């Protein structure tokens, strides 16, 4: 069992993805979405609701990804599953096998990489939380749609209580749930389409659900929303005018990674939720990080967050 200690002076990136050979092999054996096909020297990922995606396997080697940490000035990176392709939403045991393959790959990387522990959201089971933490994950991740709406929150509740009881953070990443789109996106769709529509609305729904209902039920749970929760806190005026509850935007245990955003929205969010609640997450290799003008502070905040929750495994 590896002991992971985040020290305040460290720079942490809380949101990366790595396509490891372990996961790609497991996906290549599948004949239903999501799956991987290798043709003409290309490794192509086919995911539910997504356009086919060519994975640059050379750039995903352990060495190249470690070099990228140096280039970014990052001491540690926490790797998440790419939830939009729908692995966590597959039937429980199928999801469990793919998650296990993903963790085999991530935990075999350079020691500077840590893992968020994905959990199946079909028939959610608190024991899955214990399993990924026992394997060495520094927190637990769920796709945003699994947290979108009162019923979804109720279904996930016992699992989230288990995360809270372990005193590790929950990472909410865009992604769907079972019954979501089993088909690939139409080929005429622009590459950015889902990221600016589905992902944003999923994150907003998850944030609203958690802030309006989940927070009181889980007051000790540290939650990190990817991509600034789709800017959901910026909708709070509209929430009020449409008759919604008054929410505590400055909740000290709710954090937001800045992936894909630049100084415009990051500065606005800092004003709404407080600069200490914003943490560095790059979403590499999906996007090239945007300079925010606050990156050093964001990386420190990310290190402090992981240190504060006693991220040991």
């Amino acid at each position, binding site marked *: 069992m590896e002991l992971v200690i985040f020290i305040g002076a460290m720079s942490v990136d809380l949101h990366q993805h790595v396509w490891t050979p372990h996961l790609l092999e497991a996906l290549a054996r599948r004949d239903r979405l999501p799956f991987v096909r290798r043709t003409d020297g290309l490794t192509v990922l086919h995911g539910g609701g997504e356009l086919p995606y060519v994975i640059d396997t050379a750039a995903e080697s352990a060495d190249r990804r470690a070099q990228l940490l140096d280039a970014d000035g990052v001491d540690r990176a926490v790797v998440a599953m790419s939830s939009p392709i729908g692995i966590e939403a597959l039937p429980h045991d199928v999801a469990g096998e793919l998650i296990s393959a993903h963790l085999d790959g991530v935990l075999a990387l350079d020691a500077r990489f840590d893992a968020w522990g994905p959990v199946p959201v079909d028939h959610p089971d608190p024991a899955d939380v214990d399993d990924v933490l026992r394997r060495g994950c520094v927190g637990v991740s769920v796709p945003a749609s699994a947290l979108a709406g009162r019923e979804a929150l109720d279904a996930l509740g016992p699992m989230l209580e288990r995360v809270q009881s372990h005193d590790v953070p929950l990472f909410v990443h865009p992604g769907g749930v079972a019954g979501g789109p089993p088909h690939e996106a139409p080929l005429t769709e622009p590459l950015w389409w889902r990221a600016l529509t589905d992902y944003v609305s999923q994150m907003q729904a998850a944030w609203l659900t958690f802030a309006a209902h989940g927070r009181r039920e889980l007051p000790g749970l540290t939650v990190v929303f990817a991509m600034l929760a789709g800017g959901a806190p910026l909708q709070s005026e509209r929430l009020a005018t449409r008759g919604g509850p*008054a929410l505590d935007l400055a909740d000290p245990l709710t954090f937001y990674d800045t992936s894909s955003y630049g100084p415009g929205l990051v500065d606005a969010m800092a004003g709404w939720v407080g600069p200490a609640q914003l943490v560095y997450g790059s979403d590499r290799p999906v996007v090239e990080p945007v300079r925010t003008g606050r990156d050093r502070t964001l990386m420190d905040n990310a290190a402090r967050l992981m240190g504060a929750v006693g991220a040991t495994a």
Partner: protein
Amino acid sequence: MSLSLDELQRFATALAEAPERWRHLVRHTGDARVYEQIWDDEDVNAWIICWSEDQDTGFHDHDESAAGIAVVSGRVREDRLALGGEPVSREIGPGTTFTLPPVAIHRVLHAGTGPAVTIHCYSPPLRRTGAYRVAPDGTLERESQSFEVELGAELAAV
């Protein structure tokens, strides 16, 4: 929607187990109980109270609110007012949470040695309290007051 006593019990316990929400507010003065609000929504509000030796709320009720009280550190004693007899008392230590329905009339006192820290949750949110005192003719009187008076002030004990 108001929390049930079970929900209040769980909520107070969970807040006590989330020191990130209140650790920075803990301080003790010998003059008065220190209280700081740590939660406020449509259905429940909560305070952290820091107790020093011999501090005492005096007998009071919480008007329409049920309460969940969690002891984080130190010890406190709760007395429930009884007519014609001694109050029904219990002493509570760290890691313990208890609840009381809106109908209860009680007091909480610092107990043991060393300061105490407690977390008090109310649903529906506490707005007013009733303080009890014995009039010169021996009759029991209730005075309605704002919750801030109750949380912070020393009251004449019955």
